[in-house]
């Protein structure tokens, strides 16, 4: 699939350019309170949206299924300060078990 490679190429160039620019641009260019605020908000906002779509979207509509249970399990484990990898495995395991039952 060509278009997947196009997406990958955009990411390679875009993500490296951001990293390199951060190390190279004089600090005063970007060190503006509004820019710093936006930079803090972008990952929070995007990850919130990513979670919602990943958990509820199904072929262009919303659906509640085993993925939501996986997310709830993940939230509980994160509250208990369980590390990333066991959290991800537990969410997958719970979703898989629910679907088998």
């Amino acid at each position, binding site marked *: 699939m060509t*278009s*997947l490679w196009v*997406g*990958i190429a*955009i*990411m*390679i160039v*875009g*993500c*490296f350019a*951001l*990293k*390199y*620019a*951060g*190390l*190279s641009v004089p*600090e005063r260019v*970007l060190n503006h309170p509004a820019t*710093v*605020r936006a*930079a803090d*908000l*972008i*990952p*929070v*906002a*995007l*990850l*919130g*949206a*990513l*979670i*919602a*779509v990943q*958990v*509820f*979207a199904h072929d*262009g*509509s*919303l659906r509640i299924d*085993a*993925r939501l249970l*996986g*997310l709830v399990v*993940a*939230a509980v484990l*994160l509250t208990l300060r369980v590390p*990333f*990898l066991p959290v*991800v*495995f*537990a*969410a*997958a*395991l*719970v*979703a*898989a*078990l629910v679907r088998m039952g």
Partner: protein
Amino acid sequence: MSTDRSVIVDSLGVGLATGAYGVSFGAISAASGLDVLQTCVLSLLVFTGASQFAFIGIIASGGNPVTGALTAVLLGSRNLFYGLSLAQKLDLKGSQRLASAHFVIDESTAMAVTRETTRQTRLGFYWTGISIFVLWNLMTFVGALAGAKIGDPQTYGLDAAVGAAFLGLLWPRLTSWHARLVALFGAAVAMGLVPLTAAGLPIILGGGAAVVLGMLWRPKVSA
């Protein structure tokens, strides 16, 4: 004052813990429709975990790869600001910057910017960044081989694993009510747009709307 040795040991600890979750990225990516080569190229050449997960999440939900890539790059914009705070402390020359930029990620920044000397900033940055890079790529490959066999992400609940992975990345950032509400608002707008727009767009539009809300609405007392 930490010793050089303790900086290196701490950095390797973070490197091992973080690099290990390359296996979840590899497995989910290969089960989401990317082949093993594409999966490994992402980890080798993009090398910023949240962006990689965002891209494969959007691909798995049927989104356009260009929309997926733009969302991923936007998510990678935080590395720009990591670079800013690292630049002074690492004190690098032109060619050193080019060689070091690839290792500017969440963890290498966190393990570097708190150090008191340039020497220990560099130790923290390179030991963390390079150990994650090596392990993240090895584990991506291992995970991708397994994911390619699994095929459908619904098998073994890999689709649920993606949501959990995003939540795990978001969790440490939810330190204030302001941040929590911005995340919830982004989620709500994205959900509302799912039936109305092409796959992938709800994420970038919902995220964008939540950034605007977060910029306009400033709590008087920050939590």
